[in-house]
């Protein structure tokens, strides 16, 4: 694929869908409640108003397509941290690590849930970060805001070594051993978003995770574009590592690439250098394809040896 704009639009749409799904799952409890308590659209309207009736009826109609609406509804649930969609489980690799460390045993459904995310990472690399992660839409918007503000203000671009995120993974697992898995709801941005959405919509309360989202957002705005994703989020690091030799990644046609151009490396939110054939950590966001003046970058299968430079760990 050659068009960066396609990537951009598709990624915005898929991430919006994930966020909407999260909101929807929070409301699903409401649907189940009415389904079991009333099972009657008119009663729903009387007790909760017209919008709820519309929500109830549409949900009912949608789930009836798959069989019994009650059973189908119960096949969906969770936050992006661990989620079931139509009964298919998806498990977060970080949650698998923390369960393995603390619990010493894994349930079969939990292990099966790992297949999807791992396969995705092996084929497309860190694609989760640009197309699925529910926090990344927020960080994407903040990086755009930062780019805008940089026209008038100066924020230095800080960098850490990417070992930092490995440190967060190790430290988080140790803290999790001493306390509980809940620590990840403060450390993982997408889990924090899931918690905040669920608490906000289902219980009408403010989750503590909201404060960690605020901290991450401020870091992104002031310290560097997608600072959280590059240096703090253990999942991004893990998926980047798993997908470091992914089948599909960003490919450069070297003869057409201009010397001293560096446009792609400057725009890349992951701060990798496509002009040096670096692909580790590429999330296929397509920003570099948009700015490349000669359009020599494309998303394509890469076969053969990868170049792993230290730059990808910066």
């Amino acid at each position, binding site marked *: 694929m050659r068009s960066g704009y396609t990537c951009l639009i598709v990624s915005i749409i898929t991430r919006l869908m994930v966020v909407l799904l999260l909101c929807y799952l929070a409301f699903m409890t409401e649907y189940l*409640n009415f389904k079991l308590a009333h099972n009657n659209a008119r009663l729903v309207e009387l007790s909760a108003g017209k919008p709820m009736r519309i929500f109830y009826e549409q949900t009912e109609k949608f789930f009836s397509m798959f069989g019994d609406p009650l059973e189908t509804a119960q096949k969906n649930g969770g936050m992006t941290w661990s989620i079931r969609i139509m009964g298919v489980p998806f498990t977060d690799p970080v949650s698998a690590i923390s369960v393995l460390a603390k619990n010493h045993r894994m349930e079969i459904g939990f292990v099966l849930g790992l297949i999807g995310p791992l396969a995705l990472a092996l084929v497309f690399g860190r694609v989760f970060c640009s197309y699925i992660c529910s926090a990344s839409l927020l960080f994407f918007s903040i990086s755009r805001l930062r780019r805008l503000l940089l026209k008038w203000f100066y924020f230095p671009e800080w960098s850490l070594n990417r070992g930092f995120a490995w440190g967060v993974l190790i430290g988080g697992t140790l803290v999790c051993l001493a306390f509980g898995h809940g620590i990840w709801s403060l450390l993982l941005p997408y889990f924090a978003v899931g918690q905040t959405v669920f608490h906000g919509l289902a219980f009408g309360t403010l989750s503590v995770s909201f404060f960690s989202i605020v901290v991450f957002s401020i870091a992104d705005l002031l310290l560097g574009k997608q600072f959280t994703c590059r240096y703090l989020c253990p999942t991004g690091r893990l998926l980047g590592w798993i997908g470091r030799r992914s089948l599909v990644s960003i490919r450069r046609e070297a003869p057409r690439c201009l010397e001293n151009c560096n446009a792609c490396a400057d725009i890349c939110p992951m701060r990798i250098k496509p002009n040096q054939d670096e692909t580790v950590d590429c999330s296929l966001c397509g920003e570099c394809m948009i700015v490349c003046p000669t359009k020599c970058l494309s998303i394509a299968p890469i076969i053969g040896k990868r170049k792993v430079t230290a730059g990808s760990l910066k």
Partner: protein
Amino acid sequence: MFGSGYIHEKNNSPKFMQSRASSPREPLLDNTRMNGGWKQKLLYRVTFLKSVVLGAAATFLLPLLEFLPRKAGFKRWLRPPGALPESEFIKACTGCGQCANVCPNKCISLFGLEEGLGLLATPKIQARAQACILCMACTQVCPTDALEKLEPTEEGIRAVNMGIAVVSEDLCYSYSGRTCGVCYRACPLPGKALRLGLYETPIINEEFCVGCGLCEQACVHMPQAIRIVPRHQLNDPLQQTEEPTKENNRLDSVLDRRSFLKVRSKFHQSSDQVNP
């Protein structure tokens, strides 16, 4: 010249302030891992390890949240049915929230920091506000089997252990001679878990009571005359809730009452109009 279509971040800043890492000509650590000498490789490794340690150290600041001042919370929370013993449950539950998501009764909520970091994001039930109806939907969806799978049959219900109900004879209407028996009618195991004595006085059989809290939710006395002592307090004499009287557990009943009224007004007020 070519890059006019995008915003060149570092061009907006004075030269001396430009970030080292994104400057194109600077060799930096690039390619050292591939081409550099052993000194550079060592330097690279040391930088990397330093960052790992730094990252882990930064994470160790999180337990400081434990020392945040927090309001005295509601202690008599229950775990959803089928939950492993508390120590095991803590290890298994990842706080995914799927149980809270699927509960059609809206009785499961997730912990914030009110009970400390250890319980963060795990599920809880407040019986007086909304008690579990033992539909067992949550036990079917838990991905880590922190909630063991149970069926909503009598056998499944008998396997539940959330706590044990305690009656306060000071408060209960029936014990003061005004026949009530509402809790008996709410109990899913009537005649077994909760038997009635003379004037419908509730008598709990601890062997059968599963601690679902339906009796506590239903009790018509305010504050409730029947309460669940949760499983996690049963074996802990220090934490054990005393038998509720008007004097003790005041905080408990105030909290209960507040959430009770809130939930009631939210979910049931309007349905009262449906069935006058």
